[in-house]
């Protein structure tokens, strides 16, 4: 699969490990990523609060560049970037006048021919085609799949998975050997919008997410968004302080979990860059036991 690639600022900075791990697994998955030449900031979090045209023009510029470069599909791993790009695409599709106006602002004809894909969509497609024995070290841990707020919303625009109870990541995790837990915080807010200004709120919201994952026996939280990762990993200590208990919950990008299952070295997946150490409790045959549990659960339900 050959795709245009829009890393955005996060993946070149705070979420470098997202980019590194994605690049690391791409060859094994037959994924070729070509960076959009001269891409610019998507304007996330700041632009759309201040100036609508600016908020549309910034992503439109990148999309127009992708069109010029001949891409039909662009992978946008960061949820915030994804949201901005797909919203822009949607709004300009609805309003021909606006499309022309924005084209004029960016000094390029924006046509709207490029599809914007998130990381789950792309992985879903690849996994559907089959991994054919590529999973050498099954990621056999109970995991909490955390989608965050932006990946599946608004449903009208993204038209992807179920907005309140998405399943794509859970399915992906199952395929690499993990057991996704049934939990309630899949799409709850982590407080990303207040990541800098109100860290107390972030601590409270993130703490709830961490607590539920821990209570239900998750050994890791799997994310697909740099902001989610920042709040759950970087601010975990603060969340622990707020809650008055230890979580020690590793937070992995799904690309890292996939990488581990593919048997790639931890270093290549940049696991060492996390603040919460990525380590799992040592159990005697934990996977087999967990598997048996999950397998018996639905059967037990139907019996009752």
């Amino acid at each position, binding site marked *: 699969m050959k795709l245009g690639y829009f890393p955005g600022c996060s993946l070149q900075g705070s979420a470098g490990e997202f980019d590194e791990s994605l690049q690391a697994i791409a060859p094994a998955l037959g994924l070729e990523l070509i960076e959009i030449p001269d891409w610019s900031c998507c304007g996330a979090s700041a632009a759309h609060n201040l100036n609508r045209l600016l908020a549309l023009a910034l992503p439109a510029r990148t999309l127009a560049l992708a069109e010029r470069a001949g891409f039909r599909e662009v992978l946008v791993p960061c949820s915030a970037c994804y949201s901005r790009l797909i919203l822009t695409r949607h709004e300009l599709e609805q309003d021909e006048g606006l499309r022309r106006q924005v084209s004029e602002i960016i000094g390029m004809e924006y046509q709207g021919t490029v599809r914007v894909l998130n990381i789950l969509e792309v992985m879903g497609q690849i996994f559907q085609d089959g991994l054919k024995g590529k999973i050498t070290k099954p990621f056999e841990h109970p995991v909490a799949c955390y989608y965050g707020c932006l990946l599946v919303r608004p*449903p*009208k625009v993204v038209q992807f998975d*179920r*907005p*309140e*109870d998405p399943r794509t990541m859970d399915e992906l995790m199952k395929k690499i050997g993990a057991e996704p837990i*049934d*939990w*309630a915080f899949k799409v*709850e807010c982590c407080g990303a919008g207040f990541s800098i200004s109100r860290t107390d709120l972030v601590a409270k919201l993130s703490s709830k997410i961490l607590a*539920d994952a821990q*209570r239900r026996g998750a050994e890791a939280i799997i994310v697909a968004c740099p902001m989610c990762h920042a709040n759950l990993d970087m601010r975990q200590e603060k969340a622990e302080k707020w809650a008055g208990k230890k979580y020690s919950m590793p937070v992995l990008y799904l690309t890292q979990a996939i990488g581990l299952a593919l048997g790639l070295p931890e270093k290549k997946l940049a696991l060492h860059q996390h603040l919460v150490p990525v380590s799992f409790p040592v159990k005697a045959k934990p996977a087999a036991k967990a598997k048996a549990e999950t397998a018996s659960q639905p059967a037990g339900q139907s019996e*009752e």
Partner: protein
Amino acid sequence: MSRIGVFLCHCGENIAGTVDPGKVVEAANRIPGVVHSIDYKYMCSDPGQSLIREAIKEKGLTGVIVAACSPRMHEPTFRRVCAESGLNAFLCEMANVREHCSWVHEKSELTTAKAIDLVRIMVEKAKRNRPLFPIKVPVTKTALVLGGGIAGIQASLDIANAGHKVILVERDPSIGGHMAQLSETFPTLDCSQCILTPRMVEVAQHPNITLHTYSELESVDGFIGNFKVKIRKKARGIDEKLCTGCGVCAQKCPLKKIPSEFNAAMGMRTAIYTPFPQAVPNKPVIDKKRCTYYLKGKCKACEKACPAEAIRFDQPDEIIEVETGAIVCTTGFEVLSTEFFPEYGYGKYKDVINGLQFERLASASGPTLGAIRRPSDGKEPETVVFIACAGSRDPAKGIEYCSKICCMYTAKHAMLYKHKVHQGTPYVFYMDIRAGGKMYEEFVRRAIEEDGVKYIRGRVSRIYEQDGKLIVKGADTLLGAQPVEIEADLVVLATAMVANSGAEELAKKIHVSYDSYHFLAEAHPKLRPVETNTAGIFLAGACQAPRDIPETVAQASGAASKVAALFSADELSREPVIAVVHRTAPPIFSICEGCFMCEQACPFQAIEREEIKTRDGKLIKVVAKVNPGVCQGCGTCVALCRAKALDLQGFSNEQVYAEVMAV
């Protein structure tokens, strides 16, 4: 030579607002054959009708064009006016200058020009009109009622009591429908079964009603007054004549854990079962999809136990053919599937149930004998959260429309819960409270003020289980969207009322249209609420839209009175717009070649074969003949006839060509 009068209606502002009436009248006067042209503010009013009447007499008109609204609106009115004045009704035509012109265009010269064109077209048609006479067809005075819920029961009883025969067809093993499942009914809190079951018994015992339960409509042919209906009577697996309804079979059936449909899966049933003790008829059926004998070829425990020797494993389905004059469709509704809002955890958490399931919990005949106990552990719930609009009024979560009954039944549920669990706390999350109806608002106030039900205006975003409790997260929008979290023991979703999953198929079978939600469509939402666009087929109840019981019953009686009116005459008049086969004098007799392409093309089987013979009985040729009672005037045969031997009365080829050439 034709003497045609043109009568232009202003329809108040509706037509005159965009079309210049003076110009139309003036132009009409110049059309050859038009001898009289006049406009008036409301042509359908009494003075307007008088204008037509007088002109017919004074000017000796041979044709009338009323340029006004759609013929569907007022053609019968103006045709009647003509007939009263001695002009054959079928010499009157409508030019639709409202729906086809003034309503859909701006005020302009072009709009007026189009109106003139429409008048000219109809003048050309009218010139070629011939007097036609209505076709008389006999009426079969038997009504078919589809669906044995409260609507079907009411309609059947009303028609039967008017002295006509009724055939009531019900898909399930018993009549009673959803109403039989309900506990108590708003706003009076009278027990649903107590008021319904006497009527069910009345249906079974009425001499004019033939009841076919566990039966489905197979096909409908024919037309108003003369429908030919096939009904599939599904094999119950028992001989109904021998069965006494003693119930021993169900006691002996080893399969006891099948979720009961009647109890909305809150209780269990056996493979041979009677849905509920008051079922009518009180005869069991065998669930062939689950019965061990049908699946594995052995068991027959019921056969061994049956004292009446009534079990018939090899009973086949039976097709019953009946003739009816009218059909009343009362097929009801379904509860929306919960696929749309996985965040509420229905199906995942046992203690998240829907409204119908709560009805069974609260019902004295239900699985808990009326005690409110949560399904997971049978404990009495201390806190119950009711969520209104679960799937209604939100296209992202189900359907756009309001399910109408949920505000009321949710108030009732909360009230019933409080009456049974005094120390309990009921919460209701709602969007708006819609309590329009006799004593409805008072009922809701009573729930809030006297029974202390806690109403929270806001939506629930998520429900999840934590330490044996259901955490209900929502917002209180009257407190500035303040987040609310309630630890509940039981959650009841007021899931939306939707059309039956088979509604579309049924609509096609009975030739009735349906809306985008698959509810069956009435002929006019206000003025013809129980009729459909197919003559002789009527609707009542929730197959049409969400309805409560009083409304359903009123409408069922309405449909029944329409049927009774239809059956009040021995013959029906039908419009003579039918196909006719060309006939002429000998030696040609008819230009029909007898290829009978028309016979194959006719969707209504209206083409017959006629032998033309000499006086001494020698066959000259076989030609097509149209059965005037069956022909619907669709014109398919006319289009296919290679010899042009077929034509449609009132819409002849000659007329249609003339209309086209007039533009």
